[in-house]
């Protein structure tokens, strides 16, 4: 799980092109959207594509996405749960 969370942090920073931030600056339970990391709705749909490409896990719609993207922790748990099934 730790390795997955690290991978997710790197993915969020590199693929969403966040500036002046490194993985250690992101806490597992920080909000990714809104006031947290400040991601927006365009980042959300990009993240859906990235998760599908990287992990083969599909997010059906943005309601499902909202829960999965609440934080790195939430996203890691979501992916692990999906891959287990």
């Amino acid at each position, binding site marked *: 799980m730790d390795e997955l969370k690290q991978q997710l942090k790197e993915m969020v920073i590199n693929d969403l092109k966040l500036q002046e931030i490194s993985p250690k600056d992101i806490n597992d339970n920080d909000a990714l959207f809104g006031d947290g990391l400040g991601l927006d*709705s365009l980042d959300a749909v990009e993240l859906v*594509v990235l998760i599908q490409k990287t992990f083969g896990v599909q997010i059906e*719609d943005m309601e499902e996405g909202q829960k999965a993207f609440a934080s790195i922790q939430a996203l890691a748990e979501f992916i692990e749960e999906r891959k287990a099934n």
Partner: protein
Amino acid sequence: MRHPLKYKPAITGVGCISAAGINTGEHLVTINQKNRNAQHVPNWLFHTQKKFPVFICPQQALTETGQNLLQSFKLDIGKISIGRTAKLLFSAVAEAIEMSGLKIADLQKKRVGVAIGTTVGCAFNDENYYQAFKQGFNPPLNPVLNYLNSNLAYWLQTVIGVEGPSMVITNACASGADAIGIAASWLASDLCDIAIAGGADELSRIAYNGFIALQLYDHSPCRPFDKDRNGLNLGEGAGIVILEKENRVTEKDKIIGWLLGYGICSDAWHPTAPHPEGQGIVKAVKIAIEEAGDANLKFNLINAHGTATKANDVAETNALAVILNAQRNETPIISTKGITGHTLGAAGAIEAILTLFSLKQETTDGTVGCHEIDPSLKVKPLSEPERVKLTGKIGLSQSLAFGGGNSALIVEAN
């Protein structure tokens, strides 16, 4: 912008082509009979694994009227490779010119402005060429030359043989509306005597996949303002109006209507989502009303942008509640994207034309695809089964675009 009365833009001809018909008359029948022509992307258009509904024009994108007009120019057709967007455009132009009664020889003696909106029609999307180039080959240059021949305004002026201001507007979903508004400003500034204005876009694999990737695309035929709406469907087509200075139109009967006002305004909010309260479109409509010169102007019909995305329909109806204020419960509001799909650069033009013709026939049908209006919306657009008599001749057609553009056209039917 003020129109001194002598330069008031009269609309003397229109042309429309989309999945709803190959001319304006067919569009009105389609709306009336609620014939939705949604289908999957046929292989002759492009190959895709995705099975989302699209609204497409016939494979033969150049109508008979268009072909006849093109052939009358005796161009060396063999050398010209005309893309699908240009063919759709020309079909609409041909209908409009025929309706206006203008003769080509007369047009060629006047200053004719050409303003065309497009989104796909300005992109280089020849995938075969691109892949060959990427792989280090020297592919034959025809796709590049065709691309360089495809600036729609320049191409149209060259084919028809007219001179005057010329512009291709690439303002995403508001392009067609902006083209008409800008052309009207040319007339008002005496840069030209006549203007051919509107928009055109073919359905492209790029745009289709782009909107799917953005999760803005409904798996079902779109449902504007419906409580279960889930996104847009793309369409293709063209809409063209012929604008003339009213004082130069000798036969007043041939005037179909007038453009009373045009407003344009930026949200400055988000790359793809509208301002949630529709602040930009509220302002654009206000500017259009100012140009129309009547602060008490009442709309008898509103053709909304109504793409059926969750965000657009909320933002737009929030805005309409402000715009209409006390009239919000009595003004008919519809979206026609249920029968045309979202035709991108053509949308603003096609919808202005449909608004005008509904006003002329003094009746409007409801929003095809809208079965149960979302109860949370602040205004109630007409649902599919409804049909209402219109109480006047003035209508509003509005467009909200990617990038935050908002455009409003106010038309009056003759």
